[in-house]
């Protein structure tokens, strides 16, 4: 009974979409940072299993390649793994030396797993010591807007991460939704009507309506 209660107390709940992300203070390759330091910008917090591993190296190069695109979208990048700052520094210097790519964003050295546990980044069935490939996209108020999980063996898709940010920012700006496979420039979905009166009016508003509940418009 006591053990069960202790387990319950130690249980850390994964933050969910729509919730404010738990704040933290962590050592990174760019000094000690808090999550609150990023308020005002969108943030992509992502974890990787370990430094000096092949898939992670390809991902870091790919994240660096979209860095300028993210900046255009007022978005910062923050990496994380259960490695030391020294290991991170050695790895990013190696990537620059061997692959010619400079890693411009900070990486958390989460040796005590404090941050990775807060964000549910360790999946013991995959690995008890390494973080899986997580992506948390947060808005300027540090509210979690998207959560993506990939297994250790599958590298992430940068175009999809950019697409999600574009979709979220479009949604916020125009109060619309984005359909499957949407990309910037495509028609967006008008939120469905909440009343029969709104449904009736919907047909007269000049949208491209397939039916009363599915209407598109161009931005």
């Amino acid at each position, binding site marked *: 009974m006591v053990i069960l209660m202790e387990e319950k107390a130690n249980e850390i709940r994964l933050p969910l979409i729509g919730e404010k992300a738990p704040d933290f203070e962590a050592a990174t390759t760019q000094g*000690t940072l808090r999550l609150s330091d990023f308020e005002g*910008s969108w943030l992509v917090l992502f974890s990787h299993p370990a430094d000096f591993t092949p898939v992670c190296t390809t991902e870091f190069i790919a994240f660096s390649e979209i860095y300028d695109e993210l900046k255009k979208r007022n978005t910062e990048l923050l990496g994380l793994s259960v490695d030391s700052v020294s290991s991170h520094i050695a790895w990013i210097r190696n990537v620059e030396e061997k692959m010619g790519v400079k890693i411009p964003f900070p990486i958390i050295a989460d040796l005590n797993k404090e941050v990775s546990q807060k964000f549910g980044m360790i999946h013991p069935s995959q690995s008890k010591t390494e973080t899986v490939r997580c992506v948390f996209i947060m808005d300027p108020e540090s509210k979690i807007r998207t959560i993506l999980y990939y297994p250790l063996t599958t590298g992430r898709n940068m175009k999809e991460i950019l697409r999600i940010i574009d979709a979220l920012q479009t949604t916020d700006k125009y109060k619309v939704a984005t359909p499957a496979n949407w990309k910037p420039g495509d028609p967006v979905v008008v939120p469905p009507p909440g009343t029969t009166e709104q449904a009736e009016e919907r047909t007269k508003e000049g949208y491209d309506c397939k039916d009363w509940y599915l209407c598109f418009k161009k931005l």
Partner: protein
Amino acid sequence: VIALPCISADGKPTKSGIATLSALKSGVSTPKAVAEITGHPLFKVRSGLRELVGAVSFPLFLSLCLVLLWLIVIANVP
């Protein structure tokens, strides 16, 4: 030893630390304004300023503690 954003491990101010201090000297008062002047990301400026404030306030805190200790032990103030 972890290098702080403003001060390197050997105690010397870093390039970004000097840029931040120069921006502060020019009269700007918000992290956002410092970020605009220095071209550094806002998160880095916030972190650097926090370290700077910590570096200034810790010796002040230590001095106060020593004065209190002196008052209690040496001067025998209740």
